[in-house]
């Protein structure tokens, strides 16, 4: 088995070797000003993409959110009127529903995915990879196809209704067009996003620790509470956070299963940009959504060490 501390020393011993590398002699004083290490340069292409494709757009959205109503340029005299409009109009309704549905979905996902992750980590053994692929593969099918499939399943004279009608003579009628079915859609769509981090987290629980605890007289529940959960905590935190944030920004579930029973915040954002042609309002709504998501991310990520999460012991 690999010993991390050993790797670390070998890794660092290579660095002075690189410094005395051939060809660098002449340029050394000049190169000295640049961060010379391989990590920095390898991170460069992706960082540039994100700078140009992620941070650029975000800064622009923030700029637009301070522009006067309906303006189509990010340069102008800043104003707070979009935020004032949002507070004065009833946007808190869609914010509230999106938040509530995201919280409920994240909690349900944790409850559903935890036993699944336990099954995959502790029971599947060598076949774990195949099972993981089995659960993850639906991610590779467009979300709207899968949600439309559920709609055909739950709708009036759809699969469920028709099957019940012909089997028992009593149909279920239409089960779409309400808020619980939207939450069901969220749980369905984001299950793989919860499962992956949980599996990573649970692989970090050594069987020895569990065994030692129960040898020392811990009950099953105590082993779960005092050994398994704390060690798997990074996975639990990341999974819950990921599902909360993604559900907060979800829109297709409400469209295809909710059929208008609830308007999520992203639909308001989309309408502001498209039908409303009011980019500053759409931007201001986006900024508020991003702030909520960012608050959750900051609170959770401060407790997580990514290196430890990926390194199997």
């Amino acid at each position: 088995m690999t010993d991390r501390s050993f790797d670390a020393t070998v890794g660092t011993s290579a660095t002075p070797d690189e410094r005395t590398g051939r060809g660098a002699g002449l340029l050394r004083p000049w190169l000295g000003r640049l961060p010379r290490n391989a990590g920095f340069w390898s991170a460069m292409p992706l960082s540039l993409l994100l700078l140009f494709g992620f941070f650029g757009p975000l800064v622009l959205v923030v700029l637009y959110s301070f522009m006067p109503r309906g303006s189509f340029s990010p340069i102008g005299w800043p104003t707070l009127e979009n935020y004032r409009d949002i507070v004065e109009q009833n946007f808190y309704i869609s914010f509230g529903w999106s938040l509530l549905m995201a919280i409920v979905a994240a909690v349900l996902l944790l409850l559903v995915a935890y036993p699944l992750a336990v099954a995959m980590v502790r029971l599947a053994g060598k076949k774990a990879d195949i099972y993981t692929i089995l659960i993850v593969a639906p991610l590779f099918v467009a979300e709207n196809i899968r949600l439309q499939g559920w709609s055909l399943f739950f709708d009036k004279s759809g699969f469920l209704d028709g099957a019940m009608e012909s089997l028992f003579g009593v149909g279920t009628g239409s089960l779409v067009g309400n808020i619980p079915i939207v939450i069901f859609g969220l749980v369905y769509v984001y299950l793989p996003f919860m499962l992956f981090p949980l599996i990573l987290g649970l692989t970090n629980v050594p069987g020895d620790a569990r065994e030692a605890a129960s040898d020392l007289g811990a009950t099953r529940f105590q082993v779960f509470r005092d050994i398994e959960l704390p060690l798997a905590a990074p996975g639990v935190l990341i999974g819950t956070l990921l599902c909360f944030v993604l559900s907060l920004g979800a829109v297709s579930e409400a469209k295809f299963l909710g059929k208008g029973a609830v308007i999520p915040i992203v639909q308001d954002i989309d309408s502001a940009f498209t039908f409303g042609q009011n980019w500053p309002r759409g931007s201001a709504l986006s900024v508020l959504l991003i702030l909520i998501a960012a608050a959750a991310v900051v609170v959770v990520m401060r407790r997580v060490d990514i290196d430890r999460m990926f390194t199997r012991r």
Partner: protein
Amino acid sequence: MSDIHPITRRLLWIFFAAACLLMYLPMLVTALASLSRSRFFIFPVSKYSWKWYEDTLSSLQIEQAAIISLIVAVMVAVISVALAFVGALAYARYDWKGRKSFQYLVMLPIFFPQAVLGLAVQLWLNTLGVPMSWHSTVFGQLVWIAPIATLVIAIQVFAYDPAFEDAARDLGATRWQAMRDITLPLLWPGIFSGFLFSLLLSWSNFPFAYYTSGADVTIPEWLHAKMIGGYTPMVPAVGTLSILVGAVMLCGGFAIAYAAKTIAARRRLATAAR
């Protein structure tokens, strides 16, 4: 022993099997709906037919959308895997000052509502005066997919022992030789998974295509337009075909990975015999 109780074990298996079934149920219903003759889906299906597939396959519009989707997916996969490979080395292999920040940076786009990010990218390209077409969709999807590919490859890199590379360097290999003969072959499974992930995620991606493709239409966009504008059984037909194409990509990927593994094992055996 703290092993799982047999009854719990059985319950877990049942739960797991049920979850797997539920994951695929909507796709099965979609396939069923695509084979129903009638204009609206009514279960039990009274008459089956291939009509909607014939219509789909003879539609130029859908053919065009499929071609665009494929081109975008291949472009995204190639570029994203290139960025993600070096990115994953910075993420998991090298010890450097900005690494922790870089790790969080890479996570950010994944933790971001895709629709909002798609809109933001649209606004950004619009302001910069970039015309919208499938080219801009490639760019938009990369912002979301390249970080995911980086994580996928990073999992492999975390398990990789850099001592091999250092040993090769000590024995006189150049940096390039060490990369080509040691690092790349050892990380190859991760790189391949990253490629496959990117290809499939792009193929099935809707939000970025919706906001950044301008007049070009991808398959998920075509489906969305029809779902909103009025159901026709061509929706499940195109949906089923798109699922099948994804399945072929996935299975093809596994076949290639398996073949490569077998060939490598055989070569190793041959070398050992010599």
